[in-house]
């Protein structure tokens, strides 16, 4: 473990003394330590989400927290607590300053030590889901950040290059993947989720907590590590494997991943993105739609959260991905009214231009995709132009779609004349349309995403109108729920003033239940 002296020459902040522990910090660590020992999840959550942020804003806006060595005497030099403290210490540093190479390496070491302790089953703590999610999230983020840092070899000092050589294992991709994998395996979370389906376990039902005196740490870290693996695979361009890592989690229902909004959004963002890259556009559209509606309804409760900016950014990115999906696969039926309004407001004009087939449309796909895709990492930059390639291959499909909508039968010859191509080419366009709208789903079955159904009988195209009758029943259901919810809200409002910060967790769980109540089956 690095000592505080390591940082002395690097802390640029004038007046920052890593060994000075203000009284408020003393109180903070003493209380946090006590709550952890007493397994008081509620108070830990308060201190973690509330006090830590407040103290950071007030006293450590531009400088690191006191070093772990300076605070450890106040917490019985407790090894595990010191690891947790450093985890927060580095996260705070990454968020507000730029870490040095040595700090990046030390932070990796700290994660390794922390995960080792957890993997060997010696912890007996009960930590809030938010914190456990943040650990996995930050671990992957710092890995991503390290890869980007290392990729910029040009402006490295000799000292830095020597350090990189000296610690090749720091943020090594094998190490990162294997830690996440080890947490998944050691926690037996996949088995736990399986058994819960048969009523033998109570994991999701207890929001991941353990009410029988055990620890939730390994189980929940293992659970979130599946999302972490999905994310790392997406960063590397391996979407098939990424989605496989997420299979044990049923994302069509609420679960432990939806309890923490950051985890909810990260999961669906990467799930949707991977499906987009696998051309399962309808699946991506469905899940983006659901989570965007959720954000639309509940972002107001998270305004004070440190993740609020991240929430907004991912929100915007997912609208951009939704615009791409819908342009490649026009399935507007899948979009909820309010989400659709937002989408039209943000991208309506661009989407109209994306339907055209010229260089400008191509540039728009490129623009939206680069804005919304994850920040891919080297070693080898993946070829990530799938939507562009697919756009190129789908160029003529929009034209044929609009012609087909006008006819119930039309001869191949006539349609070819309208499309200004010869007959053999028209036949390939019709087949391309079929191929592009019929995808292989996760079970290997062929699924249709087509918005126009047709078949060819020799030389004649027959269009089958599948006008889906407007689903009035569903509309009324939603209105009933909407109205009744307004009633619930106006009664319960006082309890959920985010400003009072009564309990972050109960805000989430109330918003949870209203979400599933208000949005049946979509």
């Amino acid at each position, binding site marked *: 473990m690095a000592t505080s002296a390591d940082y002395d020459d690097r802390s640029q902040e004038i007046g920052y003394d890593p060994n000075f522990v203000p009284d408020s910090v003393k109180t903070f660590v003493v209380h946090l330590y006590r709550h952890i020992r007493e397994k008081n999840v509620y108070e830990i959550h308060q201190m973690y989400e509330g006090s830590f942020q407040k103290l950071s804003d007030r006293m450590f806006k531009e400088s690191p927290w006191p070093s772990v060595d300076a605070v450890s005497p106040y917490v019985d030099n407790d090894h595990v607590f010191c690891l947790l403290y450093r985890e927060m210490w580095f996260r705070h540093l990454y968020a507000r300053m730029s870490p040095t190479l040595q700090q990046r390496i030390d932070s990796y070491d700290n994660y390794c030590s922390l995960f080792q302790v957890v993997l060997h089953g010696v912890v007996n703590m009960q930590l809030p889901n938010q914190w456990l999610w943040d650990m996995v999230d930050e671990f992957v983020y710092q890995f991503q950040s390290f890869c980007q840092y290392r990729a910029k070899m040009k402006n490295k000092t000799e000292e830095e290059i020597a350090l990189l050589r000296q610690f090749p294992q720091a943020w090594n991709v094998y190490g990162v993947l294997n830690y996440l994998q080890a947490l998944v395996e050691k926690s037996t979370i996949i088995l736990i989720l399986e058994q819960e389906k048969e009523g033998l376990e109570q994991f999701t039902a207890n929001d991941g907590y353990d009410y029988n005196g055990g620890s939730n740490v390994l189980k929940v870290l293992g659970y979130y590590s599946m999302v972490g693996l999905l994310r790392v695979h997406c960063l590397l361009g391996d979407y098939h494997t990424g989605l496989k890592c997420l299979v044990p989690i049923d994302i069509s229902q609420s679960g432990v991943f939806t309890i923490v909004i950051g985890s909810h959004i990260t999961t669906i963002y990467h799930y949707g993105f991977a499906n987009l890259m696998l051309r399962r556009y309808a699946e991506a559209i469905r899940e983006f739609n659901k989570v965007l509606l959720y954000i639309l309804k509940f972002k107001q409760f998270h305004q004070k959260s440190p993740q609020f900016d991240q929430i907004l950014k991912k929100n915007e990115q997912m609208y951009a991905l939704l615009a791409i999906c819908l342009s490649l696969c026009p399935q507007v039926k899948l979009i909820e009214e309010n989400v659709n309004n937002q989408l039209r407001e943000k991208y309506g004009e661009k989407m109209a231009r994306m339907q055209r087939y010229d260089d400008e449309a191509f540039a728009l796909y490129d623009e939206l995709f680069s804005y919304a895709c994850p920040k891919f990492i080297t070693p*080898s930059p993946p070829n990530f132009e799938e939507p562009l390639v697919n756009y190129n291959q789908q160029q003529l499909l929009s034209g044929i779609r609009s012609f087909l909508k006008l006819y119930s039968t039309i001869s191949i010859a006539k349609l070819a004349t309208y499309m200004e191509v010869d007959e053999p080419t028209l036949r390939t366009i019709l087949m391309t349309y*079929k191929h592009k709208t019929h995808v292989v789903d996760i079970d290997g079955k062929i699924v249709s995403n087509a918005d126009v159904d047709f078949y060819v009988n020799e030389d004649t195209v027959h269009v089958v109108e599948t006008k889906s009758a407007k689903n009035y029943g569903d509309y009324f259901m939603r209105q009933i729920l909407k109205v009744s919810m307004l009633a619930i809200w106006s009664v319960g409002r006082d309890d959920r003033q985010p400003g009072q910060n009564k309990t972050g967790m109960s805000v989430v769980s109330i918003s949870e239940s209203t979400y599933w109540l208000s949005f049946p089956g979509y």
Partner: protein
Amino acid sequence: MGRERETQQQQQQTSYTVEELVAVNPYNPDILPDLENYVHEQVSSQTYSLDANLCLLRLYQFEPERMSIQIVARILVKALMAMPAPDFSLCLFLIPERVQMEEQFKTLIVLSHYLETARFREFWDEAAKNRSIVEVVPGFEQAIQAYAIHVLSLTYQKVPRPVLAEAINIEGLSLDKFLEHQVANCGWVLEKSHDRGQLIVLPRNEFNQPELKKNTADSIPLEHITRIFSILN
């Protein structure tokens, strides 16, 4: 005794299939040689495992100096054969751009493009010019023919003989024989068209006969109704 146990253990170890190896060690560089051998095995035994191949490409991605161009080419040909699944682009995402610039990969990318856009005439012409790349993998032709038939069955109820011939690249007597086999085994029916040409009636499915699609009438599932029970109270 001790030795006996040892050999037993060894036997147990070797009895792991490569798929199990991948499942247990997805991020272990030591299994790279096993995965490379497995690619050859897939080629010779006409089997396929996307998971194992992606795992190998991932290890190559982490350690580019260990990459074998020849094996990557085999994987890509196998992925083409898995059409209509998007395996080809999934593999391509993991191959560095500078490697994609190699002549044989450029050819494979062009071939994939023709298949994606159902331009079978161009595909077969291009494949014929590059026998050295594709013909080393047994079953290539049949796999692409199966894909062509898949796309035809999505599109046509009745397909004119020349259209089919072009898509699967079989003509004349061989085509007659092929059709005979399909009629006997796959429910194909032969008809005469109005201008005396041959028409092939493909089996109906929900994609070439949209009426077969499940009826989505305006009904509300009971589980949705239950959600408003408390309000109706």
